[in-house]
């Protein structure tokens, strides 16, 4: 292979490849295998399964937002249609219609993928001919149309009750009956791994690279011989497929799909997950999906205003950290490796503390207001403090923490501008 060395030295070395490509997946696999050994609770499983589904869903969303530069307000349509098809397939397997009886439930996400890709191919045809704001608006219009249509065609969507199924039918694969939640875990873990691997592999294909090129410079792409519309269309179909895969996972996990799964709400939620996580990084949406699913299921138990925190988090990211959580994390490690480590660390910790103070201020304000607004006479009592909406202590604390937060962040910013 002497004749190939010339160009191979342009590519990353085998060691780099292992560290950057193979190792992360080995670690992921190890984590997925290790989790059940810790004897997790039922609640843990419930949340973890939702996370697995959302990770795939958010990554599929980022195929179009982050990689192809298309902002969609209707991505849940493909999740939902894929999921609906999977629920129906669940019924066909149960009734052993035709060949369906010989298909294991375990493979339902593939049906979902097919459904999502088919929906993407149909809806994407007119909508991906344009990019930018036009595409965003079409996606919104289409999402509203499909959602409304879902209530008109009961035989497929099942009206408000939706369509439900039973996953404990058909052939068992790998000895999994999919009955107990611990067995469903292996199903979710397997498909999440497949989904992540598949979407990561996509970024390494010619089309994956081309979609980034089209995002950055659609005009130049045309002059080297590609049709940007075709690029967008193909990426859109594949993203729809992976959204459908997530839908198929959800179908098996919840055994029910309702028209709400297609509405603007989950479409907005997946946008927030991907963006908060960081759309410029492949792993960004994974971070976002994990954090937001956790917030959704845990925080909603602690506070009724969790959506307010979600909105505040989202706006904070859009305004102050457009590269998302992944950007913050990787930026931190890059800074540590940089030349002025001390100054960087000082600035970073200052803004972190400042952010925390502001967060405390926000929490006090929101929690006190929520209780006052409910009017049940309930009082916010964190750490034994008695924070009544009428007590001066409340407002003093609020002002002090918020003020300190703003001051520290401003200080950190001034330092940053001073050094650069």
């Amino acid at each position: 292979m002497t004749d190939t060395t010339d160009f191979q030295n342009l590519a990353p070395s085998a060691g780099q490849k292992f560290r950057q490509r193979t190792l992360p997946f080995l670690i992921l696999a190890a984590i997925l295998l290790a989790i059940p050994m810790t004897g997790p609770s039922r609640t843990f499983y419930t949340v973890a399964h939702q996370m697995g589904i959302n990770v795939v869903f958010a990554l599929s969303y980022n195929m179009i937002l982050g990689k192809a530069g298309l902002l969609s307000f209707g991505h849940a349509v493909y999740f939902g249609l894929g999921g609906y098809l999977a629920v129906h397939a669940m019924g066909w397997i149960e009734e052993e219609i035709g060949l369906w009886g010989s298909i294991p439930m375990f493979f339902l996400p593939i049906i979902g993928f097919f459904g999502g890709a088919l929906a993407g191919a149909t809806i994407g045809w007119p909508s991906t001919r344009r990019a930018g704001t036009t595409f965003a608006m079409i996606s919104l219009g289409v999402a509203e149309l499909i959602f409304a249509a879902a209530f008109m065609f009961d035989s497929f969507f099942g009206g408000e009750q939706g369509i439900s199924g039973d996953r404990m039918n058909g052939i068992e694969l790998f000895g999994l009956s999919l009955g107990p939640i611990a067995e469903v875990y292996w199903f979710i873990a397997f498909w999440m791994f497949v989904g992540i691997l598949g979407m990561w592999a996509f970024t390494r294909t010619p089309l994956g690279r081309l979609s980034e090129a089209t995002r950055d410079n659609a005009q130049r792409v045309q002059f080297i011989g590609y049709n940007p519309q075709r690029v967008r269309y193909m990426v859109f179909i594949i993203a729809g497929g992976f959204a459908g895969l997530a839908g198929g996972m959800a179908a098996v996990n919840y055994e029910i799909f309702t028209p709400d799964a297609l509405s603007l709400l989950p479409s907005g939620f997946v946008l927030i997950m991907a963006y908060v996580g960081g759309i410029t990084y492949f792993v960004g949406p994974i971070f976002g999906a994990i954090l937001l699913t956790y917030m959704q299921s845990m925080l909603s138990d602690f506070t009724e205003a969790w959506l307010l925190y979600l909105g505040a988090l989202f706006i904070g990211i859009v305004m102050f950290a457009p590269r998302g959580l992944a950007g913050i994390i990787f930026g931190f490690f890059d800074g540590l490796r940089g030349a002025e480590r001390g100054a960087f660390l000082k600035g970073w910790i200052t803004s972190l503390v400042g952010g925390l103070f502001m967060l405390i201020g926000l929490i006090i304000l929101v929690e006190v207001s929520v209780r006052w607004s409910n009017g049940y006479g309930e009082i916010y009592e964190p750490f034994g403090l008695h924070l009544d909406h009428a007590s001066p202590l409340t407002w003093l604390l609020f002002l002090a923490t918020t003020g300190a937060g703003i001051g520290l962040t401003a200080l950190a910013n001034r330092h940053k501008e001073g050094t650069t």
Partner: protein
Amino acid sequence: MTAIALSLKDLNKSFGPAKIIDNVTLDIEKGERHAIIGPNGAGKSTLFNLISGLYTPTSGSVTLHGEEISGMAPHLINHRGLSRSFQVSNIFTNMTVRENVRCGVLNALGQGYAFWRNIGSNKEVQTRTFEILDRCGLVDKAALPASLLPYADQRALEIAITIAGGADVILLDEPTAGMSHSETERAVQLIRTATEGKTLIIVEHDMGVIFDLADRISVLVYGDIIASDTPQNIRGNAKVREAYLGDEDLPEEIA
């Protein structure tokens, strides 16, 4: 007589009432190095945009190897063997130099839309990418993000992307604009080797470059070709001298 690679016939382009290209007729032979010169605003870039498919002609025809291409989408024209560069560097700044070139190479090998194979596994793609990088003197900068390249190298990359697709008719829009003297010399050398055996059409302001490179020169003034001849004859052409009077330093350089 040799075959005609690109032929423009009665080509017109108007924007509203403004006639930018006025009845241009021009035949360019296969393997010819043809330069288009003219004062600023003469319509040189518009002419390129008409040929490469960015604009649709108001009337007239453009034929490439005997096939009508006017009004065709840019990517279809590219598939038929015509590729162009841009006056302002138009590269993929978020990608590395190697990836920039690879995008063009993949198209030539018909794998641009592939989503089932690894981009790094095809040996032919890697070899050809390397060849192009080598020809354009960019091998040692292959792993750099394109946005970090120095200006002259960005221009070289612009040419590399243009030739990567393997087109046999190459249009270069002011490839040496903004370069220093030594950079220009290097660029001319690069253009010569990079377009070896291909048909080249080049728009340029630097007369040194033009007279160095071109087999034939066309002079475009107010959307009209007033002369089309060998460099030798263009030098002596009175109409050309008149058109250039008061514009740049061409007359002295010609004389």
